[in-house]
């Protein structure tokens, strides 16, 4: 378990980019909550992890805003699961947030990191 400082830092960072993360993950196809958290963990190589407490409130908030839409799906032999997919509105927001994120990262890099000519 990381110490308390990084925990808070993590949280603040995650807050800013969390929406972008989730939106992009359901862009390609609908996914359920557990799948999303696994993907985040896997693709970030373990650097980022979303627990229940942080994931689901976020999912619900995005759903309320109408950027993603959740649907109960019952597959054969399984219990039903709630799948989330991107709405047209969400698609627009994703594109906007992506470009914003890229500009932001570029700006931070220029200020803090290696300078490019």
């Amino acid at each position, binding site marked *: 378990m990381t110490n308390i400082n990084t925990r808070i830092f993590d949280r603040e960072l995650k807050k800013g980019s969390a929406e972008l993360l989730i939106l992009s993950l359901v862009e390609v196809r609908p996914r359920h909550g557990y799948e999303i958290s696994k993907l985040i963990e896997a693709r970030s190589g373990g650097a980022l992890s979303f627990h*229940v*407490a942080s994931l*689901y*409130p*976020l999912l*619900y*908030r995005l759903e*309320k805003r109408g950027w993603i839409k959740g649907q109960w799906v019952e597959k054969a032999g399984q219990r*039903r699961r709630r799948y989330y997919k991107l709405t047209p509105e969400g698609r627009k927001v994703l594109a906007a947030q992506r470009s914003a994120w890229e500009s932001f990262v570029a700006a931070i890099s220029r200020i803090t990191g290696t300078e490019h000519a």
Partner: protein
Amino acid sequence: MPDWKQEIRHRLANLNLEPAREDEIVEELSQHLEDRYKESLARGASPEDAHRAALAELSDGEMLAHDLRRVERQVIHEPVVLGARRINMIADLWQDFRYAARGLRKHALLSTVVIATLALGIGVSAGVFGFFNAIMLRALVNKDFDSFVRVYSAYTTNPTRPGRPRDTTLEDYLAYRDQVKSLGDLAAWAQFDAPLGQDDPVEVRVALVTSNFFTLYNLEQPLMGRLLQPADCSAANPVVVVSESLWRKRLASDPQIIGKAVHFNGQPVTVVGVAPTFAGMLDVNGASAWFPYTLETYLKMGDNLPRPAETPWLFVAGRLNPGFSRQDAAAELKLLASQQSRLRPGRTTMVTVTDGSMIQDPYWGDKTLLGLSLVLGALTILVLIVCVNVTTLLLARAAARRKEIAVRLALGASRVRLVRMLLVETYLLASMASLLGVYFVYHVPGALIRWLRPQPEWQETFPWSLVPDWRVFGYLTLLTVLAGTTAGLTPALQSMKVNLSEMLNGGRSMLGGAARGSRLYSLLIGAQVALSFFLLVFACVSIRAYQKASTIDPGFETRQVVWADLIMRSRSDEQRNWGAFHRTLTERLVALPGAQSVAYSDRHPFRAPEITVQAPSLAPRQVNSVSVSPNYFTTLGIPIVSGRAIRDDDPPCGQTSGNVSRNYGCSVVVSQRLAREFWPGSNPLGQTLRTPQGNSFEVVGVARDISRTRLGRLDDPMIYRPMNLNGAYPKGYEAYAFVRFSGDGVLLSRAVCTTIREMAPDLSVSAETIQSFRDSEIAGLWRIGRIIVFIVALAVTLAVIGIYGVVAFAVARRNKELGIRIALGAGKIDIYRAVLSFSVRPVAVGLLIGLVTTLGTTSTIAQTFRDGMFGEFTMYVQDPITYTIAAILLAAAAFAAMLVPARRATRVDPMSALREE
């Protein structure tokens, strides 16, 4: 399997989420934990480790709850169904409307019954109103009601006392016609009765008209031949247009009738056209033939007006030209009238302009208003009864929805909102009933006409338009709103009193429910009984009055006496010897088979004019007066109770027309009442009376009181004076002959007519038995009576059904209690007593209230009847027998209505009653 849901619920406990939402979240999160658990197991962890790992996801429980609360709060604040305020009222109403429609469909049977009841009440009322609207509230034409104008003139020598406007003179009419700009098609007419045919003539009603009369009444094309033209009037052609019904009935539907001659009043006229039934029939007795008005002299009509230009005898009507209003016409005519006044100094002309409806007619207006008010009153009560009925039905439904209403209240609906929702439902029902009512509005007037039409002589088709106009639809709308509000308000207000916790926790204390509900139901029952009682009394009074009127003995013989109305139409210049005429007539009449005696009088048997007389040292008074021939009393069977009757040698009294006043006393017979009032306690024989004109009368006999003018009430004091059978009749002759007979009255009437016509062809005569005359008068009144009886029957039926509904519902509500009683051993009698005791008191109270209300209002009604539209008629509105009959009828009906649910109550199965909620 570890129970994730429990863990999750535990952490969400403080959120107070909606149960469905909470379930969803719990399911999703537990799914997630389940997956995590399985994955850990798959990687080789032990179950405990896997469990711990999964629970680690929930480690930050507060954050979860905190974040979820922030998100879900938005959800909880969304308005639930009919909850908090919304800005858009229209959207609310629309929602109410949709909900109401859905509710209606769900309770289809109840809705149908309510709509049917309302439709019946509203529709029939509006239909009857439409009937009276067509007849009384607008001009009797077929179209363009708004442009029709009727002109009445009043001529007076004293401008401050104008007298009642009525007929117009010919010269005034011509002046108006030629000069007026605001009116077009100004036509004039006058109606008369004339005998048609030469052998066995029959009296028909005819009209003398101007040639534009037909255009005025929207008749363009005759059935055959042609209509009258201006040339007919100016040249005074002896032509006539007959009506279709006259052509069929009296002229044998002769297809060659055009150009043939028929005889009216002994004068030949050529038939030039046959008119179909149209509004120019003028009134319900219907003119059947129309002559050019200039034929008045030729046909010897009327009083053969000495100076037709100066004497008022014409009715005038026209149509407004476009762009003018009735006020314009009135102003213009007023100007023209004052010009006409200047032509005849000493006489003032005043003109009144109306829309041609009966209610604006200067002569018929008040009586029409009275009749209309009575009918409207009865209709309103009918509608009220219907509303009370419907209220009962709706209350039943409202009671069944108690729980639903409680839930809405709990969810935050305001009570006002609830009332609005319930009212929307009722208005929806009322509107649908109103739509059905439109059907009634179009069909009831016609049905009424068919039902009321009594005599075969009446026209086959009703000549005037029965189409409803804005007034009828306005009335319909008013009734709908009234019905909707009245029927809906009570259940709505009742629902406002719903006790929340009691409702939601299911069931109510039987005692509390019974006490509170029964007051309302008692009120409903009582209201229906009171209203029905009022109407029932009204109907009973009408029926009894009719019965009495047809059987009452007026104090003189009516069945075995034929009376003949003799009128000399023309003013003949030769002086007829009236004395000889009367003697010969008497001889020949007495000689008729069955005739026993003959008498004459100068007045209509049922109308007696008044004169002023004064006994010495007493104030002058008005009494009825009639001049009679000597054997009048024996012929009519009026006993002389003291003194003697008029004798042959009694000299006739001086004329009261302002001739030389002769100051000798003529002998008169007075009625008992006059004797009592003028000389109470002393012998009237030999007493003297004087008139202001200076005549003096000496009383030689007293006759028994009769009731000729007001059925059921004795006449005012009466003087019988000797009739001058030898006199001259410069102004035209009118007398009445009475023939006492035995045998067939119809035959004798005909024989009398033939005899008189033979003797004096220029005399117009009609004869029938006095009784048959009275019968037809009463039949006329009974027509209106039947409408009222119909309305009352309908109302009482509805009231009885309503009482049944209330009692049935009350019994159903107390099913549990009754079940318990039966289970505890109550017998049938006890159950009956239980049910009836609940309902008997309101019925009794209702009857009492009805009695008091009725007594209070009937004195007013009695007064107006005495003087009003029904003329010489006294209604027994305070007759105790009537009230008793009505009360018994109503009580019996109510009792029967209560019996059926009571019987059902005795068959309640205690076990199932106790089990039901």
